[in-house]
């Protein structure tokens, strides 16, 4: 892999390729899938709530055990919404990075952006820079410290993203860029470990649990902040869809079409940092969703057109994230799996498949 950069340009399906099914139909399918998973996410959990009771409760007619209403409205609903928002945000930021760096293995996790966000959170939580007098990450939910921590995560993500951007202008090799991203992530991880060594046990405990990744900790009070950050990030990405299509054929080509390269870079930087940073701040570092979903979308729609891929990533990212969260509850009896274990088990095979298929295509 070292000596053979994975060149996406010649292997990526052309923009005008005949779609297997019309894009709008595909998007409708994804929307239906997402809706089904949302319903499943609300209906399934460690506590058995009969489906008709769940439906009645959601339509405002409380039936059965009163605790069911709390479980649906206060626990499952925010959890499912968080899963959907986080999945969309990560998938879109992954898509943007893959196009920006013209690298199929780019993503918020693989390029160290999530690690940068983690460092931001660690600075806010462990070093107490987040103005929270309280120990521990749960302090996130105070409006002040909450925004402080999220802002710190976004800043950390942006810092790493800037570094990667700066380096990417000098380095042509895709694999070198990935390794550099990995190294930036390692540096951020090392700094986090140093901070951990100097923090007290309670903060350390809160931070460690946050590091496992979870959608369950986000409350109604926190959802607006996550929703606004994700919405803003996706909106910015939407404005970049056309110039991103031009960018698929290189910066020179994009410039010739009148794309303002500096402004596009700035927009992409802002969007990816906002998405990866906010999701990381609220849910912990979630692996693989950002990397795998854009590939699944390209495979499904047989296109590289960002006007299709962006909404597809929003829908499939949310759906896959909800499915992962559901899988976390598979053991039953109230026992849960760590989110990152599930996303790794789902996402890593996708990455392996990409590598193997590309290698096979080149060897033919």
């Amino acid at each position, binding site marked *: 892999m070292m000596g053979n950069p994975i060149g996406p340009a010649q292997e990526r399906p052309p923009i005008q390729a005949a779609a297997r099914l019309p894009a709008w139909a595909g998007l409708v399918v994804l929307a239906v899938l997402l809706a089904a998973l949302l319903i499943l996410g609300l209906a399934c959990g460690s506590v058995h709530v009969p489906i008709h009771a769940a439906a009645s409760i959601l339509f405002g007619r409380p039936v059965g055990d009163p605790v069911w209403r709390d479980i649906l409205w206060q626990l499952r609903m925010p959890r499912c919404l968080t899963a959907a928002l986080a999945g969309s945000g990560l998938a879109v930021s992954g898509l943007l990075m893959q196009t920006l760096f013209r690298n199929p293995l780019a993503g918020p996790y693989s390029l160290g952006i999530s690690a940068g966000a983690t460092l931001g959170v660690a600075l806010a939580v462990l070093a107490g820079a987040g103005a929270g007098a309280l120990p521990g990450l749960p302090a996130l939910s105070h409006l002040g410290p909450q925004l402080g921590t999220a802002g710190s995560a976004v800043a950390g993500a942006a810092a790493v993203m800037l570094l990667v951007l700066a380096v990417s202008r000098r380095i042509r090799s895709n694999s070198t860029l990935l390794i550099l991203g990995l190294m930036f992530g390692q540096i951020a991880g090392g700094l986090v470990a140093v901070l951990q060594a100097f923090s*007290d046990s309670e903060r350390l*405990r809160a931070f460690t649990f946050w590091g*496992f990744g979870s959608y369950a900790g986000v409350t*109604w009070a926190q959802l607006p902040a996550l929703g606004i950050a994700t919405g803003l990030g996706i909106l910015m990405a939407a404005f970049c869809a056309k110039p991103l299509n031009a960018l698929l054929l290189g910066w020179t080509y994009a410039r010739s079409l009148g794309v303002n390269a500096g402004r596009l870079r700035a927009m992409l930087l802002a969007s990816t940092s906002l998405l990866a940073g906010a999701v990381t701040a609220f849910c912990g570092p979630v692996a693989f969703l950002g990397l795998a979903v854009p590939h699944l979308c390209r495979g499904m729609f047989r296109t590289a057109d960002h006007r299709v891929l962006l909404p597809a990533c929003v829908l499939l990212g949310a759906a896959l994230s909800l499915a992962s969260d559901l899988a976390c509850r598979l053991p039953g009896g109230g*026992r849960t799996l760590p989110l990152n274990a599930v996303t790794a088990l789902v996402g890593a095979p996708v990455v392996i498949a990409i590598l193997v298929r590309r290698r096979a295509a080149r060897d033919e």
Partner: protein
Amino acid sequence: MGIFSPPLRFAAAIILGLSGCDHSASGGQAKAGVERPSSGHGENRPSREGEALRYAEVFSMFRSGNATRITVHDPWQGAHRDFTYLLVPRDQASGRAQGGDTQIVAVPLRRAVTLTTTNLRHLEDLGVLDALAGVGSGRYICSPAVRQRLADGRIRDVGDDMHLDLEALVELRPELLFTYIVGGSSDGGLAKLAEARLPAAIEGSYMEENPLGRAEWIKFTAAFFGKAAAADSIFTGIDSSYRALAALAAGAARKPVVVVGAPFGGAWWVPGGHTYVARLLADAGAAYPWAGDTTRGSLNLDLEAVLAKAGGAEIWINGGEWKDLADARAQDDRYALFRAFREGNVWNNDRIRCADGGRDFFETGATRPDWVLADLIAILHPELMPGHVMRWYRRLPAGKRAGTEPSAGARAAGKNG
């Protein structure tokens, strides 16, 4: 991914910590012929000749003549190993070969190091602190006597169990190092200690399921310092006071339901039915929703599973790191879904705080189950303990933001409750 590896081992430690270290290797039954404080689980085990213990299961001790043989059984989760120590008087120790698996220790020790705080408290209670040359995690220690000795250099801090200062240890040349091992595949650095020729003894009290069994480890410590008689008398006092309190609680008219712990990162580690915490609650006259569970460790549950089973609990103990209820609610307003929270019945064991955020409860609590039980009975059945002054527990005050408009979650919960 590099960001996960450093805290992983730590995570194992805190999970044990969260559950109150409720991992027990062997059963939690009292020995035959000993009156038990309350009905519990398991069968009585026949007593063995020469055995000097009443409740402890993780170690056994036989006194014969001047010598004492101590065997520590499976002192950590998955250890599948016994450790045997033959304690012989100093003047008779020379010439005895270190035979096989049995480690010969000349007693009383004159120069020891301990990495466990439980043990530390034993040394203080037995009056042998002068024989202590070093401690682990010095900065979290609560005991004023030990802090004073740390300050004037009579005791040295040798780091914590994850970052043990081996050079300092070698320089201290202790006759014996008391250590403990938290489960996992490793041997907790025992091989490294052996290479450095530092004799170590394993302290496994946290594996005891019975609170009195945990306290009985004072006999283990005492044997190494020639204080067996003092330990027997201290323990007899603890035992009878615990049983008197349990008998008092057994007469309570009703058993309030109790919920324990708090969620962390979406997971709530709930002590299983066969744990130290469950046993204390049963003896304090509580109805613990997971009392019928057979887990020896903690159950990793999600919030909805705990809410469905314990949302109506009257009392909530050992909650999160909260200053007051407003503080807790600001972290997550869904705590108000619990009845105990809405009614202001949340009790934390952080009344005595020490330097660097440590709690005296974690240092002293394991050695004084009678005091823990007294606090718990006073929380659950205040009418049984008139005039009781809480040692470790405090009821969380409402806090300054309590008067403000409750959130949607709290309102919904209020209607349901």
